[in-house]
């Protein structure tokens, strides 16, 4: 891969390019082959990605997906821009509001706070992967029944979070809900309905 002439030789993953050449003994003009280079920095093996696009392979909703992405691309942007999985929303874009919540190896993460390259090798489940076909999951049905959505922009993130929360807390009380679902924000003010959803304990992830 050629150097991008417009890009300054900047540090990447805390390792400057000069260090990289010195340590690895490999000139950057050589094509980068499969996988990132490993270098030693501060006594640890560190993977160096880029500069420029690198191959990224993700497992999303059980499917293998791949794309050429710059290392700075977040999991959220990769899902939305490259794979058209737009259920997870970009709202705060810095790990606060929860609108981009997805499951990574079964745990909720803010997809805007995970780099796509760091999500490789993990099982990612998005809102699109919760339901099978057109049928809604019990949690989704409960969101409709309790009118726990208005504009709907925070809803996919909230449903992923609520699905995981109910797996962790099958019989939640009010305090569990206060703590367990406070990682997502809604602007229209649908929390009363979401609280009713959690208290109704819709069971199971299957549609």
């Amino acid at each position, binding site marked *: 891969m050629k150097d*991008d002439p*417009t*890009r300054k030789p900047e540090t990447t993953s805390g390792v400057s390019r000069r260090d990289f050449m010195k340590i690895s003994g490999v000139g950057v003009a050589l094509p980068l082959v499969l996988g990132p280079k490993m270098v030693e920095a501060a006594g640890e093996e560190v993977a160096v990605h880029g500069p420029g696009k690198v191959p990224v392979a993700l497992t999303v909703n059980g499917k293998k997906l791949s794309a050429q992405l*710059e290392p*700075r*691309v977040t999991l959220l*942007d990769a899902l*939305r*821009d490259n794979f*058209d999985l*737009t*259920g*997870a*929303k*970009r*709202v*705060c*874009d*810095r790990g*606060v*509001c929860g*609108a981009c919540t997805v499951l990574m190896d079964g745990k909720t993460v803010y997809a805007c706070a995970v780099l796509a390259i760091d999500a490789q090798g993990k099982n990612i489940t*998005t*809102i*699109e992967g919760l*339901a099978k076909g*057109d049928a*809604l999951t019990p949690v*989704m*049905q409960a*969101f*409709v*029944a309790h*009118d726990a*959505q*208005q*504009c*709907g*922009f*925070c*809803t*996919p993130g909230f*449903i992923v979070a609520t699905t995981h929360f109910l797996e962790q807390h099958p019989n939640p009380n009010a305090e569990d*809900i*206060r*703590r367990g*679902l*406070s990682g*997502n*924000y*809604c*602007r*229209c*003010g*649908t*929390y*009363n*309905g*979401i*609280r009713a959803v959690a208290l109704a304990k819709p069971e199971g992830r299957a549609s």
Partner: protein
Amino acid sequence: MSEYTWPDPATRPLLGKRISRVDGPVKASGRAKYTYDYNPNGLLAGKILRCPHAHARIVSIDSSAAEKMAGVKAVKVLQTPGTEIFWAGDEVVAVAAVDESTAEDAIRAIKVQYEVLPHFVSDAEPPKNIGVNNGPISRDDFEDMEDNQVPDEQVIAAIKANGISFKPDDKYLKDAQASGVDPQVVEALRSAKYAEGKTSRSPYKKTAVQKQGDPDKAFTSAAAVSEGFYGASCITHCCLETHGMASEWPTDKDLVVHVSTQNLSGIAPQVSEPLGIPAGNIQVLQQYIGGGFGSKFSPDRWGIATAQLSKAAGGKPVKIMLERDAEQEVAGMRPSGFARVKIAADKDGKLVAWESRSWGTGGMGGGGTPPLPYIFEIPNQRKQHIAISTNQGSARAWRAPNHPQAAVITMTAIEDLAAKMNMDPVDLITRNLELTGPREKIYRDELPIAAELMEWKKKWHPRGDKSAGPIKRGLGLSLHTWGGRGHNSDCDLTIHPDGSVEIKMATQDLGTGCRTIITIVAADTLGIPLDNIKLLIGDSRYPVSGASGGSTTSGGVTSSTRRAAVDARDQLFAKVAPALKAQPKELEAVNATVRVKSDPSRSLRWKEACAKIGAMPMTIRGKNPDKSKPPDLTNSGVGGVQMADVSVDTETGIVRVNKMVAVQDCGLVVDVKTAESQVLGALIMGISYALYEEKILDPVSGRMLNPNMEFYRLAGIADIGEMKVHMMIGKGYDERGVIGLAEPPVISPGAAISNAIANAIGVRVPFLPLTPARVLEALENGGTHATV
């Protein structure tokens, strides 16, 4: 012959019931596609370079490095050298590139030189001795007044008293009227005296003193006088879906835009003018919108830029969605509103006098004037407002413009007066309800219901919770009102010979339930199930319907839909009557059949009935307003009462809302479920602005310090407490017709919560948000003064 009235309660299969929103499943599954999600092949990412200074002049722009970058497809300078910039975050250059990373790099490669100018961002109390600005009204002054919804009579009075310093031509006047300026205001402009403008450097624009009755005498003879300082800081709209638009040119004459908007039918005219193409060549699309709250009526400069960038890139689609920091800094805020108030009552608790000196800022335009005193027409008044021009992104309509500020200034002053007179505020307010004009009866109905839901009599105590321990508990209340008459709306309803029904309307559903209520009205009128109706909205090629602002959508779309459905039903009856050996007026449409009212055994299933139409479908246009088809199906003027129960930790200053009660009228409720959700949502948004939200500006840099969502804090699920909503339904309410509900319930929470805190801790925390620091300061100095 046709009955356009709303049906009798006994014959409403769907209207006024509790129905789940029709677009619930598509939203819950994540399949709903918003403007932000528009992602066609070949989409170019647009980005904006924004001015980092609160006040500056552009000296030079060098975008050559960006233009040469690989992957950059278009660069467009939006404001040229020499232009004065009035707020940080204003748009300077736009770029389009193959992806967002490249566009970001291109923005960084553009060099702009600015001459930095002095800025002013403070909305602290204006100096005592500033004069009244009696200079002629400039075009900016006039447009600011209109943008800030200054009452028409005030605008007319100002034009008459001061003259104008610009010469509006016929086109300007016509455009003004087309964009909603009142015809009498337009006439005042047309006949205004022209005067050379004096430029004033002062950021303070002071209105003349408004006086009625004899306030001095009334204060002197009053039994009790209370003085206080109240208000609310600037907040932002903080829509979760940021503002944005995508444009593409399928031919070099035709433009297609996807835009996040509350004003689908009104976008093409605003896009056509700057681009110089016919509005008819522009198609505007939007299925779902992630929040607007009054901030999304215009395509904005960034939206126009997407069309310009797309054109320069050979017509390829270009999308710009604002980054969160830009959204918070420039894409809408609610003006601050503060006042020093003096209020008086006679020995029976009757309000006799009001005096206020109010101020606030809505950015360069100064902001609107809160309607003071709110709700209560106090006989003797003296008031004056000072609008402060500040170097920050302009105010946009924020749910119920000017009303939350007015409530937070008035209802607090009334509560303080009640405390001074050792009266229960519910009692004092009840004694003054005749001052509320046409809504007196509504409030009289609502107050006891709210009090019962809150257990007011059992839980209320005189000011200052005397119980032991640091946690103090208290109750507060507030009243509010809003107009909400239905906007202009056209609806095309088509019945196909196979029985399917299709409705087309160029409106938008902001999450209010607009789709749901249109479908309910049509299905209820035609006597068919909801899923028999295919509703098509969100495309400017459909019949024109108004912008969703000022709670006007529900009244508008339900009225046009009802008229279309009634006419369609009656035309169907005419086709079906011979087959049923009856007159059309003897038929009814119920339970998916068309049948003879007096003999239900003579009936046709809906599908069979529709087959009688013939080979071609039948399309009927319904309109609102429509004087030829009375009665008016919508109305104006609602009343609501809210109460709050809070606990305050007097050691930390942290406030927790235990319970909120809302009793709300909105005329005929079309869908109880989505109506209640709207009120619940407003209560929660109200808790959010009462306790947490504030647009904090740095006096040194002039920039917003919290343009994000970690320090611009919204209420979360842990912050809301118990919530009770009671909709006024039935006789006295249903027959008023449909009235919008988006604004009214968001007006009172700030005042109700502020009053509950005062009742708990015994002192007034002067202004919103009621943060721990302000609570502690009020406790320390007895509530007479606040500097934070």
